[in-house]
């Protein structure tokens, strides 16, 4: 009797909710199935082995990892500032630094062009003084990706720092820890999972970035043509290659999410 009542604690969902949840799952699964049903599986390996595909893959991986590194490097101090320091205009700064999360990426790309382009606000001086021209380079790809990806890191980490007890930082300081030592030994370990989650989210965003990249960096094979760009461009010329590249992206992103979700993104079985 006892075991039956304890097993009952997990009550079934009402059927309309269950049906809607099933529709949601189908909604996400269907496009994947569609993609896979049209994939040229027999030629899969030879298509994926093409130099153009490998080139785009290499560029995507390298640029998205650099963008993630840049997001962590710049985003962590910013998140800490937003979470722990009170200053005038803090909410404005927060809105500004997370704007690109909701902005259409194409708009972001155009804005970057006007700021850092050859005749842009800052770009013209970079050109004149340092002979540095950013647009349409691999650097531009990294900048565009960082621009849209960093907010995901900032938002995740700021929330975690807010939740961490500032009392522990006080305690560390009374024990003689400098603010850097306290940040490194006390605050960082407390937000470890948020750091990983934020980095993964911003990496995923950078890896799939399209709009800002094509506006600011263009689409030059081997230099700025990342996987999403080559999917878009090869769809007209070689549909089979486009589908295989799309599936490659799906596989990479899916693998990363599944591998990290249980441990870092708060998923998996709840232990209560």
């Amino acid at each position, binding site marked *: 009797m006892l075991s039956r009542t304890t097993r009952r604690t997990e009550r079934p969902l009402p059927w309309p909710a269950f049906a809607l949840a099933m529709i949601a799952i189908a909604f996400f699964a269907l496009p994947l199935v569609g993609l896979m049903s049209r994939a040229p599986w027999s030629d899969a390996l030879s298509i994926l082995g093409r130099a153009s595909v490998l080139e785009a893959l290499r560029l995507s991986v390298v640029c998205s990892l650099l963008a993630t590194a840049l997001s962590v490097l710049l985003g962590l101090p910013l998140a800490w500032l937003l979470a722990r320091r009170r200053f005038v205009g803090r909410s404005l700064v927060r809105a500004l630094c997370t704007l690109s999360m909701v902005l259409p990426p194409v708009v972001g790309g155009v804005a970057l062009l006007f700021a850092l382009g050859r005749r842009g606000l800052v770009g013209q001086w970079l050109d004149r003084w340092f002979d540095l021209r950013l647009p349409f380079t691999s650097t531009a790809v990294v900048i565009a990706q960082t621009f849209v990806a960093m907010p995901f890191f900032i938002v995740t980490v700021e929330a975690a720092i807010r939740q961490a*007890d500032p009392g522990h930082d006080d305690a560390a300081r009374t*024990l003689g820890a400098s603010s850097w030592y306290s940040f490194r030994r006390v605050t960082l370990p407390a937000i470890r999972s948020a750091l990983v989650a934020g980095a993964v989210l911003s990496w995923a965003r950078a890896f799939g970035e399209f709009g800002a990249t094509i506006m600011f960096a263009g689409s030059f094979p081997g230099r700025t043509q990342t996987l999403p760009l080559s999917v878009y461009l090869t769809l007209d010329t070689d549909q089979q290659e486009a589908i295989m590249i799309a599936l490659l992206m799906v596989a990479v992103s899916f693998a990363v999410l599944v591998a990290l979700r249980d441990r870092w993104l708060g998923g998996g079985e709840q232990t209560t």
Partner: protein
Amino acid sequence: MTLRAHIVVVRGSLSLDVWLNAAAGEVVALLGPNGAGKTTILRCLAGLLAIDRGSIEILGEVVDDPSAGVFVPTERRACGVMFQQYLLFPQMNVLENVAFGMRAHGVERSSAHAQARHWLGRVGIDGLDRSRPEQLSGGQAQRVALARALASEPRLLLLDEPLAALDATSKVDVRRELRRHLTEFKGTAVLVTHDPVDAYTLADRVVIVEQGHVVQDGTFVDIAAHPRSAYVADLAGVNLLTGSMMGGVFAVDGGAMLVVAADDVDGAAIAVIRPQAVSLHVTRPDGSPRNTWRAAVIDVDHRGERVRVRLQGPIQLTAEITAAAAQALGIKVGLELWAAVKATEIAVTLN
């Protein structure tokens, strides 16, 4: 003087203006009701809060003086703080927690850990080096927090409600331990408490703080003898009984026995009972209060809604009951009735 401070701070509805001095080796208790500003004083001394006016001087060094533009940050004040919620670092084990201060000062890992082990031994924590703070009992966490504060060899030790987070049973042991450590501690200690028992048993001198001001300053006995506010008068009314502990029973000098909640302390002791904890009955009460005795009323003092009743009998003490209860019992001088105290309401400290 180890500590010389004049602290003026305005925070929200609290307006704090206190003078506080302490000699080398002295243990000073800041005693007062909740919201009096005691913890704020402690935060100012530790440098976690800057004062608006006044000055703070520790061992001759001015650490905060707004008029002179001096503010020494917390990490360079060498004030060990034991926080009310202990604030042990949850990601570190016990040993790393205690070694943290030494590591922050650049002490090499192995030597910091060796010293941390020494401090843990001194507070009676052995074999828990690798435990996480969440695995510790309240009493253990309190000891680890104390070891962590002492391990960085502070010039000034600050304790914020050191016993408030503990249950009544473990309080007795931990209080006795804490008293021993405070006696051994060479530097000056300031502790904040709202519990007169802590102030009486732990401190050499008591400073009463009410609404941001020092109301009275002296030994507990002096203050109790000449209360200068209603709050102090209430404190002064605390029943202090001398006697000895043996096998969970407190033998009051004069012969009576009281069952108490502490069962592993033996020797000469002091029992403290709040007057509100003494209940009065016409007939002998049954149930949880295990200490009951016949008593005679020898004095009645009406204080608005409360009535203080002095009792004579095997145990002499004062009870405080509501005016309504006093009327229902027909309290008057000469009345004989039953007095009762729960074991958990008796705070015992070895003398």
